[in-house]
């Protein structure tokens, strides 16, 4: 007779269990009460909707094609305008114009699609790779953990922006190349984060219980350890989303990637805007308006990530089950 028979087995909840539980309803209530999560979700949803709009209705910004195509068509023929439309002008110029006589508002709205596409690609690819490797390294330890540590050390010795730009050069320099290069440089961040969390969860009673009951390593890592680190992981994903947007804006602001030169992108717009300093610091809106727009996005994803972390309340759920 099994010595453990009759004893209540402590088991970590799966994602499905969390979603179906009463505690999930409670979590939703907590989320609703959580002002920062709600604010973050609203702001992020605003940017997502703008990004989707430009994808689904490419003409809504007043151009015959998408804004990206419209700008790319300039291909070097853009010339700096000596007069820049002021704030509060009519139509698309309501937020003023920028260096090339372009209206800020539609270019800025079109930029959301590019920035979101880039950062979502990087975060999804690098977080999935980092999640799988981090979970296994954290659970197994030993040689796998050692290899992961060495690989991540390999990448963290070089400043991220330098590495991303150099690998992008290597791949050929296009929008997609920079996204791949950034993912290559970014996944160790997630892997190390997940690995550290998994190592601490590995010590929990429910993991030991699952091991003694014969669950496989994959079952333990994805059914027991992963749900335990999910809140922190989700928060990290959202925060990194904001940081990747900042990175691509930085690369474009510094003109480090020629492929982006005529793309509607926030960093590009700020680069044009900073050139307007030659017209005097009273012409501030080409720089400040896109800058505030970028801060809005990073603030949104940061608040959402921080709010989610507090709201999911995995721990209280677990203790309730006992």
């Amino acid at each position, binding site marked *: 007779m099994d010595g453990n028979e009759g004893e209540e087995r402590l088991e970590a909840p799966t994602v499905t269990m969390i979603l179906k539980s009463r505690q999930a309803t409670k979590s939703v209530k907590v989320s609703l009460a959580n002002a920062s999560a709600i604010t973050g979700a609203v702001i992020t949803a605003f940017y997502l909707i703008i990004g989707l709009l430009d994808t689904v209705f490419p003409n809504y910004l007043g151009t015959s094609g998408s804004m990206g195509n419209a700008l790319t068509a300039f291909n070097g023929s853009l010339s700096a305008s000596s007069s820049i439309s002021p704030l509060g002008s009519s139509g698309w110029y309501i937020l003023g114009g920028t260096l090339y006589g372009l209206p800020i508002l539609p270019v800025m709205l079109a930029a959301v699609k590019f920035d979101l596409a880039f950062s979502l690609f990087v975060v999804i690819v690098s977080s999935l790779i980092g999640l799988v490797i981090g979970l296994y390294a954290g659970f197994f330890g030993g040689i796998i953990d050692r290899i992961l540590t060495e690989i991540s050390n390999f990448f963290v010795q*070089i400043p991220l922006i330098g590495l991303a730009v150099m690998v992008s050069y290597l791949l050929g320099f296009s929008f997609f190349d920079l996204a791949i290069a950034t993912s290559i440089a970014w996944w160790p961040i997630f892997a*190390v984060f997940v690995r550290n969390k998994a190592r601490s969860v590995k010590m929990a009673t429910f993991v030991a219980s699952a091991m003694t009951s014969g669950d496989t390593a994959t079952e333990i890592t994805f059914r027991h350890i992963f749900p335990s680190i999910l809140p922190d992981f989700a928060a990290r994903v959202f925060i990194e989303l*904001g940081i990747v947007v900042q990175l691509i804006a*930085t690369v474009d602001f510094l003109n480090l990637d020629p492929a982006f030169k005529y793309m509607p992108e926030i960093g590009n717009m700020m680069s044009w805007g900073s050139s307007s300093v030659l017209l005097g610091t009273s012409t501030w809106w080409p720089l*400040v308006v896109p800058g505030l727009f970028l801060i809005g996005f990073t603030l949104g994803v940061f608040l959402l990530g921080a709010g989610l972390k507090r709201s999911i309340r995995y721990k209280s759920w677990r203790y309730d089950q006992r």
Partner: protein
Amino acid sequence: MMAHLMKNSLGIGKRVLTAVIELVALLVFLYAFLLAAEYADKSAVLLQAAGPSMGINQNAFTQFFYFVKDAFTGNWGNVASSFSTLGGFSVVAVVGFSLPLTIFLLAISLLISVPIVVLIGIGYSRRMNSTTRVASNLYVGLGIVFPLFLVGAFLRFFLYNSSLVISAPTTNLPYWTFPTHIPVIDGLIHGNYAMASAGILVFIIPLLLMVFFSSTSMLQIYRSGILKSLNQGYLEAASSLGLPRWIVVRNYLMIKGSSELFRYISIVMTSILTFDIVVEAVMTYRGLGWAFYESILTGSYFGAIFTLFVFGILVIISSFLSSIIRVITDPEAAGGE
């Protein structure tokens, strides 16, 4: 203490050696592919600077050994002639002139930001929702939400015509001062106070940016060290024995926070050096980050690769020093984890 250090020195030495090999391997990968591709195109500006002596016409395996030899013997090629300021100069000269400025910026910013991190970090030893803790979270949050380049761009824009910003591009080498290449120090050495004060003025904004962003980056790790330690049983025991909170903070929590910082120093340093590249590029501060930026803009891969190499060496040196400090200061680390 020395016994702990000796005991751990083998592990530290092994880590440093591995790090150097990894760094060279990573850079040679970039070096071999970038330069070989350019060589094959026969169109690159680097050809005038390179020459077969650097092995760029060899296969990747051979190039690895060329790269290692060049890296450690100082044969780093010349900067391409299209480099706006330093065309034709050797990469070693560029690094030699720009590195002191970067080291000076990093050293002063760390000297200021470390006490800030410790002071704000103590806020996390307080109970949840205390004012100090909320203020600490706000400080970290600001560092995450506001992109560095954006803050730098705003400052540069609005201070453009002031003496706080280097606004006019210089087109020749003599921007650098002698003997240290740091205008503040060289001005003081030569009694040229105008040079020293001008050096201080253009140093202020890069310093402020570095201090703020480095401290928020370090604070995230320092905070995790403190929060992890708050749940330790012996901390509760110390409190229940009536030990004043400030002694617990001073003797234990601050050390654990610092230990965590030293533990992840390579990540911290890489972030700080990333900030450095952005600050120097945005503010036209003529350090190593600016040299890297200019090299990329002008396609001078020798300049780019070897400035990255120096950045990597800085990370490795800081890892080495922090490993030693951690072993000395944290008994838990010294006893093995």
